[in-house]
């Protein structure tokens, strides 16, 4: 399946684009996606934290991703 990952803040700058489309195995987990992205973009590994959001909620490591999910990478937030 193909999943699209939206990127924000410093993660967007590290990757160099506002979103990426990836081929992912069926049953890909949030943790699996994180590992893959950290390997493809080593700059992401230097961040204080990095989370995956699925459909506007933070996803636990074992959450399984689906093609139609709205997926985003969440670097350390700093609102307020």
């Amino acid at each position, binding site marked *: 399946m193909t999943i699209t990952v939206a990127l924000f803040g410093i993660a967007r700058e590290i990757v160099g684009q506002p979103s990426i489309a990836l081929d992912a195995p069926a049953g890909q987990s949030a943790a699996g996606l994180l590992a893959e992205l950290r390997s493809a973009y080593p700059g992401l590994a230097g961040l204080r934290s990095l989370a995956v*959001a699925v459909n506007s909620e933070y996803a636990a490591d074992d959450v399984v991703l689906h093609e139609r999910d709205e997926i985003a990478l*969440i670097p*350390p*937030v*700093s609102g*307020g």
Partner: protein
Amino acid sequence: MQIDLTDQPIDVAAVLQAAESAEAGAVNAFIGTVRNRSEGRRVVRLHYEAYPPMALRQLARVAEMAQEKWPMLRKIAITHRHGTLEIGDVAVVVAVSTPHRADSFAACEYIIDTLKEVVPIWKKEEYEDGTVWVAAHP
């Protein structure tokens, strides 16, 4: 509960008014503004980037969590701005009302503290000689 994310200047009085209630004598409000210094460096301006649908969803969750912890909360109003902000501009307003004042302070502080941990908004500080995404690195 009134939750808003906007790229326009925040009408602070309107947010406060949204939190007032005839049943609650105490309103506490936190207003976050852009400081001219950060960790000893002079800040020129700030850029806030938001992930809007998730930011709105998480702002609402924070308000819901506060309502669970402080059932006596009558009204909660939160507005966060994004885009480019100049020194002195208001970035966020949190306002809550409760019948008694101690609860209003505790609930408002909980909301702004939690907001800063979970709401997907990112702040880039611009100095005279560069920019930094706040708190991105250990």
